């Protein structure tokens, strides 16, 4: 409005211009309506968080976090589920992050943005991000367990007892690694874009080869972005239940996974089982709320860290 006013020729009275450019009152209706949408969304988020915090805060204690479940989930803690989740996402990161990072490096350093292969890979990444998580679960069962696992069993363990060809933490972690691959790729790419050209040019000017530049300059500079991607992947992976339903999660285990072929307990799966298959809902309710709160805190803390790192990368890029 002000720009227009200043552009207007002098002779026209200021009041006339203001009259003409004054927003009509009904202009406030869409503004109020869209603001209402924002408020409803914020209210929903607060409602969900509030309910879970109020319901679960009383249950959280050191013993709850460090003791195993007792009396068929009606007492005790969630220690094995926490450990299982940690092991699972740890393995997932080991499998998934290197591949994701190198994919981003390839897309950003080796190919031209518009080339056919780049476009094809990008389409694949976008589609991978959109495949329903239950389909990943099916894939984990059909490919990792049914094909790879049984293949290993047939080749190396001729006895009838399956060793690798059954649900296990390694298959669940691999499935999740695939599911979170797009997250890692996208975050790493964003970090790669933030690296100033001059830094790379300087490396080449010193006689470094492409691979040396990638290893010594580009990857170290992109570390915050890689870190963000890994954290976001962990946050996503820790919350996904559908892909691990048939690939390794167990309702209750008296032991903690120590081998790659062990099954494991997991927080999200624990929530699902307690919420839907508990014989006595009232007795498990406090534990259920406590578990949900732990899971939610875990994912939010991870997301928050990732958002902080990412906004620092972005501000650095703008500063250039």
């Amino acid at each position, binding site marked *: 409005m002000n720009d227009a006013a200043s552009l207007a020729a002098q002779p026209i009275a200021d009041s006339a211009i203001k009259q003409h450019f*004054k*927003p*009509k009152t*009904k*202009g406030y209706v*869409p*503004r109020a309506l*869209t*603001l209402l*949408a*924002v408020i409803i*969304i*914020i209210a929903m*988020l607060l409602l*969900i968080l509030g309910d*879970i915090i109020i319901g679960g805060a009383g249950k959280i204690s050191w013993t709850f976090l460090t003791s195993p479940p007792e009396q068929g989930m009606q007492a005790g803690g969630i220690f094995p589920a926490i450990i299982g989740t940690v092991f699972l996402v740890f393995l997932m990161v080991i499998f998934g992050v290197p*591949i994701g990072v*190198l994919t981003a*490096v*390839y897309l950003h350093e*080796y190919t031209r943005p518009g080339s056919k292969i780049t476009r*094809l*890979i990008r389409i*694949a990444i976008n589609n*991978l*991000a*959109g*495949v*329903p*998580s*239950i*389909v*990943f*679960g*099916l894939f984990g069962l*059909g490919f990792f367990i049914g*094909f790879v696992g049984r293949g290993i069993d047939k080749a190396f363990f001729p006895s009838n007892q399956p060793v690798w060809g059954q649900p296990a933490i390694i298959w669940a972690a691999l499935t999740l690694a695939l599911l979170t*691959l*797009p997250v890692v790729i996208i975050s790493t790419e964003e970090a790669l874009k933030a690296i100033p050209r001059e830094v790379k040019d300087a490396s080449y000017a010193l006689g470094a*080869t*492409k*691979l040396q530049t*990638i290893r010594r300059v580009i990857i170290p500079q992109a570390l915050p972005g890689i870190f963000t991607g890994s954290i976001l992947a962990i*946050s996503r992976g*820790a*919350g996904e*239940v*559908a892909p691990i*339903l048939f690939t390794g999660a167990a309702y209750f285990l008296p032991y903690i996974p120590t081998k790659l072929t062990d099954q494991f307990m997991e927080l999200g*799966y624990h*929530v*699902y089982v307690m*919420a839907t298959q508990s014989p006595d809902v009232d007795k498990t309710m406090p534990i*259920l709320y406590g578990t949900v709160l732990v*899971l*939610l805190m875990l*994912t*939010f803390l991870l*997301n928050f860290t990732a*958002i902080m790192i990412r906004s620092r990368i972005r501000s650095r890029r703008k500063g250039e």
Partner: protein
Amino acid sequence: MPTNDNFNFRRKSKLREWFGEKIIMMCAMSALVSIALIFIFIFRESLPILTDNFVKEEVTVGKMIFPQQWKKGEPPHWAWQPTSDPPKYSLLPLFIGTLKAALVAMLFATPLAVGAAMYSSEFASKRMREVIKPVIELLAGIPSVVLGFFALIVLASVLQGVFHWTYRLNAINAGIALGIAIIPIIFTVAEDAMSSVPGSLRDAARALGANPWQVSFTMVLPAAVPGIAAGMVLGFGRAVGETMIVLMASGNAAISSLSFVDSIRTFAATIAAELAEVVFGSAHYNVLFFIGTILFIFTFLINLGGDLVLSRLRIKLQGRTR
């Protein structure tokens, strides 16, 4: 002999460069290979429905689609009862359930997400925007099992208390929770589309005397419509494929009714609920993978379409400014 050394070094490093690039390229292909493998292996497990005579006795594609006379004297109808005798594998009840849940989710999420996106892109101050973005990211960060839990324990009871529906867990309950899950997707895509409308177009409209809301409604919104539509389509795809929320909050009864207050069973939830208990390689197992194939193809097409629309929109909007 320094020159010879130099030559050796170069050859070695060239080899290393070559290997390095090939390894990096192989990693980059992993996304492509994974998509192909996912399709191949899910399709492979559902193939016996078409080829295996033993399986075909129990279930065929025709039996899954058309109404069957399951018992003598009964009129033919659709039913999903894979553990009954004879096992009934009609997909229609699941299809209706999936559609009902996704429809409720879209009706719930679209006005909120598009409205909020519009506010964020058109009206919000910078500070307000800094509130909205993290809120959406937090919402997107809630694991679906937590939303499912919330819908099962809290939302269902609240709705039951207000409306007194026959079934506590129904399409509306699950749909609302699904809607919360897809708000971030629709918001992000729609907001992106609206705020990528070039400033020069806004300036032009303003210079012609349009006030802020006229700029938004007559200029930005029409230009961003394909983006908003793409956001809705992507949200719909997510709603159809989402598993844990519907598994926990929908009641999981395969009823072919059009009422939104009946319990429902969706495709995704059916796989999740039944696969753990089926015999490896049985007809039931194959049918569940067949459903997985349908889900995969459906979401694949939706994502491809959404991508296409968005990249075209980007070209169009950027092309105009230059």
